[in-house]
């Protein structure tokens, strides 16, 4: 199964890769917030678009790969488009919202692709209540690929026995996946304890 590893370009030598994680997060939030505040005139969006392209080029991220990732937003935007057009000036409102979305998601992906997961987790630990958040985040990042693969393998197992899985089969597989996951968590706990993790 295709996995989108979030920090796949973080090990290249590029502009964003060298920027400190905390500063990157601050800049990201600042830029997305600025997008909310700028007037709805195309001229104000141009610097953001130029910034995205400059980040892309100087951080050495392949353009086609980046574009493919960013374009997933379209499935959400289509729905919002059809909801917007009933309003007076709905199309104009939608176009500017769409631009903001596109620029925001581009900035998020740029940030994420150029930040080593480890540094992100270390940064999260420093924020209030960050320890629990980073623990859970870490487990999520470690295990969600495994769970997706496990689900696919179960599906394949079903297909190999002549059953093309339908919705109710997916429910059965999901229930199965949860039980396996629950039991795995018990084994992971034992593995952690066996290597000295103490309940504090």
């Amino acid at each position, binding site marked *: 199964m295709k996995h*989108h590893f*979030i920090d796949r370009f973080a090990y290249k030598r590029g502009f964003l890769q060298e920027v400190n994680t905390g500063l990157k997060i601050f800049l*990201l939030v600042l830029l*997305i*917030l600025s997008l*909310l505040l700028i007037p709805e005139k195309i001229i104000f969006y141009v610097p953001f678009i130029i910034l995205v392209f400059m980040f892309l080029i100087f951080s050495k991220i392949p353009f086609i790969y980046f574009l493919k*990732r*960013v374009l*997933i937003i379209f499935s*959400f935007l289509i*729905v*919002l488009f059809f*909801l917007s057009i*009933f*309003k007076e000036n*709905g199309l104009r*409102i939608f176009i*500017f*919202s769409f*631009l*903001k*979305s596109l620029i*925001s*998601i581009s900035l*998020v992906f740029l940030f*994420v692709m150029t930040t080593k997961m480890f540094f992100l987790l270390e940064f999260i630990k420093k924020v*209030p*209540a960050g320890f*629990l958040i980073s*623990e*859970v*985040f*870490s*487990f*999520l*990042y470690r*295990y*969600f690929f495994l*769970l*997706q693969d496990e*689900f696919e393998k179960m599906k394949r197992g079903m297909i190999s026995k002549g059953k093309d899985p339908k*919705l109710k089969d*997916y*429910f*059965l597989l*999901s*229930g*199965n*996946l*949860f*039980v396996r*996951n*629950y*039991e*795995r*968590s*018990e084994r992971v*706990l034992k593995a952690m304890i066996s290597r000295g993790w103490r*309940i*504090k």
Partner: protein
Amino acid sequence: MHIPDGFLDLKTVSVTNFFSFSFLFYSIKKITKKLNPEKIPLLGLSCAFVFTLEVISFPLPGGTSVHLSGAFFISLILGPFSGFFITFISLFVQALILGHGGILTIGANSLNIAFTGCVMGYYFYRFFEKLFPSFKTLWIFIMSLMALIVGSLLFLIELTISGKILFSRSLFPVLFAHSILGIIEGIFTVSAISFLQKVKPEILKTQRV
């Protein structure tokens, strides 16, 4: 439905983020105070499960597909605060990795999905389950559906206040779509809980926070 960045105005973003982040920290406080630390791996792996559920395309007739939130389901196992916490993290990571939802709209998305499913759905379910315990399965189904309907109403209100849509024109299509989703989510939650009851009932006795 996840709202991407750019579709909510500053005031809506501020209010929803204030609410959701406050509730997040309150949940973390509850979890650190009450949850057995041995359950941390379970919390983490359940977050991975919720994320996986939200990523899997569940097939529908006609070649379409749907994604489930699993928020209410997880709250029935782990409790409302743990459920909210891990669904929040899952939504945030979805925004980071998959572009499902935005960074500044995390508050709104958490309110619409995590809060309605894990907190509102959970407490309403417990209330009705105590009153009419023989209809447990029915309450699970109804609360799943209700969580999605309330979530969709919040979604509409947020977009309306932000000046992006007309509430009256959008109400029916959005409610209709989310009702279908709610029915599917309801059937999923009922089947998943029944499966656990048959296969590993001790899961349903896990400490809930």
